[in-house]
């Protein structure tokens, strides 16, 4: 038997971080679902199991819901079982009670009760739907232990944190639930990256949703041995399939000269299509010369134009001071020196202190950079 295990679609997840392209960002998750549907058909699975958090919240728009249901309709005749998670728990007036669900095909089952159902002939499914956002109860606790004479395939589907993960225990799930209850497979959701622990697996979210996720963007193809004697069955065969498009990349780099800048550019170019890239770059720039600084500015401008989203932060660690002797820089050199000394933590004179107001080091750095920028633009020989 082949099933496609997916979870944490987080449809309707807000994408405000990509600014004016938020709508595009939201739509991307639907495209991932579309790819998942296509994959299910291609892999000829018998069942699609979605283990919770299919919707990011209950306020998802009607159009999005109907579009998602339209995609699920396309899965027919494959059986589809959908589990409410902690983001979209079964509550009155929640996303699961919308009118749109009344029209869905019979191949789709919303797992709204903790009771055994025969999802396919000879396949018993033990759903553990969530009815609230937080709880310290194990939602799988109700699953009965396999009877000796029960030779069916027994599948569990639940949303929560395996207690082996040692994360904050919202809906903790006993790590040996599958063994304890004689489940052939326990399909889990909640963890946003692929995690396979014996028969208990997380497919992770199918489209990355944050910078700090590990192994996102996959669904799991699970093949189960239907040997009549449960004891002689092979363990499930689990295969990862990528359906996600977006990549959230975070780079923390130190830049000292033009070579470093070029290296950074090369590294970014290996991250794939910029259009799919959400990029966070944190730079530590120290003693950059004008050429390097200009190259860095250019790189930022290019990325700003090309990637889906860019967060660009530069920590200026130092600039060479202008020499008071060279080029008669006059007041400019005075200002630069003052800023440099203040950045270095020197205490300002009372007169200066009044002038600075609540300016912090960042602002002082920025002011010094501005000075250098303006000086560079006017071709003033910089130290």
């Amino acid at each position, binding site marked *: 038997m082949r099933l496609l295990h997916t979870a944490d679609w987080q449809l309707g997840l*807000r994408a405000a971080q990509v600014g004016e392209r938020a709508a595009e960002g939201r739509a991307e998750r639907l495209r991932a679902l579309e790819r998942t549907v296509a994959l299910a058909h291609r892999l000829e699975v018998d069942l699609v199991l979605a283990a919770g958090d299919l919707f990011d919240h209950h*306020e998802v728009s009607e*159009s999005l819901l109907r579009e998602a249901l339209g995609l699920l309709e396309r899965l027919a005749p494959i059986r589809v079982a959908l589990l409410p998670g902690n983001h979209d728990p079964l509550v009155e007036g929640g996303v699961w009670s919308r009118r749109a669900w009344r029209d869905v095909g019979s191949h789709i089952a919303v797992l709204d009760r903790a009771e055994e159902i025969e999802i396919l002939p000879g396949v018993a499914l033990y759903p553990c739907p969530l009815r609230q956002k937080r709880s310290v109860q194990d939602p799988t606790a109700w699953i009965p232990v396999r009877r000796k004479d029960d030779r069916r395939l027994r599948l569990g589907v639940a949303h929560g944190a395996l207690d082996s993960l040692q994360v904050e225990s919202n809906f903790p799930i006993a790590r040996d639930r599958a063994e304890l209850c004689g489940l052939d497979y326990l399909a889990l959701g909640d963890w946003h990256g692929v995690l396979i622990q014996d028969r208990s697996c997380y497919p992770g979210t199918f489209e990355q949703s944050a910078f700090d996720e590990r192994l996102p963007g996959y669904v799991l193809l699970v093949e189960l041995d239907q040997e009549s004697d449960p004891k002689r069955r092979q363990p499930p065969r689990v295969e990862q399939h990528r359906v996600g498009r977006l990549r959230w990349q975070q780079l923390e780099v130190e830049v000292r000269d033009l070579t470093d800048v070029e290296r950074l550019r090369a590294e970014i170019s290996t991250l794939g299509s910029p259009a799919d890239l959400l990029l966070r770059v944190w730079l530590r720039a120290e003693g950059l010369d004008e050429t390097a600084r200009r190259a860095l500015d250019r790189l930022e401008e290019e990325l700003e134009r090309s990637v889906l989203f860019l967060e660009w932060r530069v920590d200026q660690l130092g600039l060479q001071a202008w020499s008071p002797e060279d080029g008669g820089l*006059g007041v400019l050199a005075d200002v630069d020196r003052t800023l440099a000394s203040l950045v270095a933590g020197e205490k300002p004179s009372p007169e200066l202190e009044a*002038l600075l107001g609540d*300016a912090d080091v960042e602002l002082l750095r*920025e002011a010094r950079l*501005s000075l250098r920028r303006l000086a560079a633009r006017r071709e003033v020989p910089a130290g």
Partner: protein
Amino acid sequence: MIVEELRLRHWRGYRDQRTFRFAPGLNLVVGPNEAGKSTIFEALSRALFDRHTSRAAELERVRPLGSSLGPEVQLVLRAGDCRYRVVKRFLESPSSQLFVERAGSFELDHEGDRADAELRRLLGGEAARGAARPDQRGLAQALWYLQRDDSLPARAWSQALHEGLAGLMKLSLQTPEQESVLQAIAEEHAETFTRTGRLRKGSELGVLRADRERLALELSARQEELERTRAHREELGGLAARAEDTALGRGEALERLERLDRQLERAPEVEARHRGALEVLGEAERRASGVRTLRERLRRLEHRIAEAEVARVSAVEEEQRLRTAARDLRRAAETHARRWEEELAPKVQAARSQIEDLRARLRVEQLEREESSLLAKRERRSQLQAEAAAVEEQMRELAAPDADESERLDALAERARALTQRVRAAAVRVKVELEPATDIEISPELQRDPESGEYLVAGPSRFRVPGVVEIAVRAADESLEAWHREASAAEAEIRLALERHDVEDLAALAERRREARLLEARLAAIRSRWLEAGGSVVAGSSPSADQLDADEREARLLADLHAELRELRARAPQAVLPGIEGWAEHRTQEQIRALEERTRALERSLREAREAEQAADRSYRQRHDDLLRSGQRAAGASAEAATLGAALAEELEPYGDLPGLEAAHAEVERELGRLRGELRVRADELEQEVAQVRRARASTEAELRVLDGELRTVEAARADRLARIEEAAALDLDGRVDDLAGRLGVVERRLEVVERRASAARLLQRLVDHHQDRRARELVKPVAELVDRWLGHVTGRRYQGLSLDDKLVPLEVRPARYQGPLPLESLSYGTYEQVVVLLRLALAALLSREERHLVILDDRLVNADASRLERLCEVLAEVASSCQVLIATCDEAPFRNLGARVIRVAGDETAEDVGALVAGHPDAGLV
């Protein structure tokens, strides 16, 4: 820059060319007042700063008095490493030339305006127009202290002075590139902020902040809407719990209802028992009621029998009484009848007869009087008739016209007269005179005026003198002829009337008419009397038809009268008995009236008697009727009593008798009491086992209804909240919130950058300002130090120093004796002048560190006392070591030891200037 030589021509007192040469150190220009000392400095100033083309009024005053000559000036200068020659002429053929010394000879470098500009630049002069003014003189503003110059600038010394000093101190004077950066910093600052540091309208920062505000507001509004949806969901949770509770309560109520229904299963049985008891009681009640009714009826029957008996007795008694009364009444009626029949009626008859007689008597009397009157009238009428016939005869004889004819004739005569007069007035007058007189035949005859002898021709006429002539005359107007004809006709008619009455003229006719009227009056009187005598209207000699009728009527009247007399006399012969003759009529009348009165009294008595009889009769008949009715009532009452008695006996039959009935009644009442007790037991049973249960059931049903209502309310609320949630979902609030948040994020990120950059720009600008200020202060410092040293020395340590602002303008002096500084204005004029001079000398000394500059003091030390002047000279000597100093003075004595070149300027200005060689000065000497 220093000046080596100055030549003047056509310049105020210097009509002819004059040449002055100056030493590079100290020079004294000595001369009395108005000798032309200041003219030298004026020429110097105009040569360096004025445009040669200037036609300023001041320049006009430069021409020698009364001349139209163009003032000329020539200068030899040394600036930097070069020597220059300047040649300028003003007003007349103005020109300007600048020569530069190259390889020992002067070459023309610039001419005209260009030469002017280059010269101005030498001392940093600022503007072409009005360039000779102190504030436009560049360095010379401070270094040259001329007559009429203000001692200090209003705000600041010229830019050239600042730049000069700064450059010397290697402090500022930015290169153009640095200037450009400062400009860029200022521009970046100005992109966001105004000069006063406020946010500039329309700046990116302002726009972004406004955008952020707007987006944040909108986002907050959308989020609130989302929150409402979440709140609806929360409410739904509560509503679900409420629905569950209600459903639970409803279940319990249903169970209770079921239990009560089970209890009510016995209800029909209990109700039947109760109904049975009720029916038995009802039956007993009906029976008791029958007995009670019977008793009642029997009582009523007994009562009515008694009543009937009483009525019968009463009727009998009444009958008796009525009978007696009727009899009495009958008797009374009969008495009355007898009385009027026997007594009153004959009396009345007799009285009436007597009255009749008396009336007949009176009538006879009256008839007889009428008869004699009628006969007398007949006699009189005969007489009057004879008189009338006589008068009528007279009138016939008189033959007078009647009134109408008389009137007509009068009118005719009047008309004839009027016409005749008109004809006479209008007629043609013809007068015929013939010689000899001959008879004239005139046809027709014409009237002739007796006076004039003229013929009056009123119609066609012929005058004929036979055998001679015949003249036909006629009037031109036809009406004349008509009038004439009419007058003639009237006169003819009058004549005929006169002939008819046989009188001569109209007067006689009138007389006759008057007599006729007298006769008519007499006849009228007769007729009047006739009528009085009973005649008819017309009375004449022959009786008229009317008269005949009247006579006949009179005869008939007499006949009737006689007939009535006869009848009366026949009916009452006694009335005409002679015996009663002499009865006066009035006595008879009185007798009649008395009799009538008596008759009326008798008739009244008779009527009363009759009425009494009739009343008695009516009463009798009434009593009789009453009697009959009373008898009937008595009979009826007897019969009713008998019937009732029979009925009573019949009703009582089942009970035997009345006591039997009473016993039966007591039994029925006892039975009733027992049955009522039993019914109470059944009713209690019904109340407890049925009614109470039913009430509980109704209450439970009501409760169920309430719960159902509650459920419906909750369901409606749930449906409402769900609908609202669906509605909100359809609006894609979440997507809009996300989009807004996205846009807000973009704005905020950009705002962060712009804000940081703007803050940096502001900080940078502040720092630039700060350092520029500091530099300005650094510029002030050496100047102040030098002035302080000199001021202390000159004033004998009275003042320790001078405070300057950053523009090098003195603010106050620091006296040695006082704690605080003193404002400059509080100094004496002499001291003030010394302070100003020292400041200018200090500026000159500093500016001349690299290049010697010219300092001019035009008679500015006159107010210094001897000791201060002496010390000032020491300062001047120090200054002169690095500067060229020109001092104008009237008195050279105080400066004698300074080793200055002396240039004397005489009042008459005839000779060349005389320079005094001062020992020790290399350049000093006579020119």
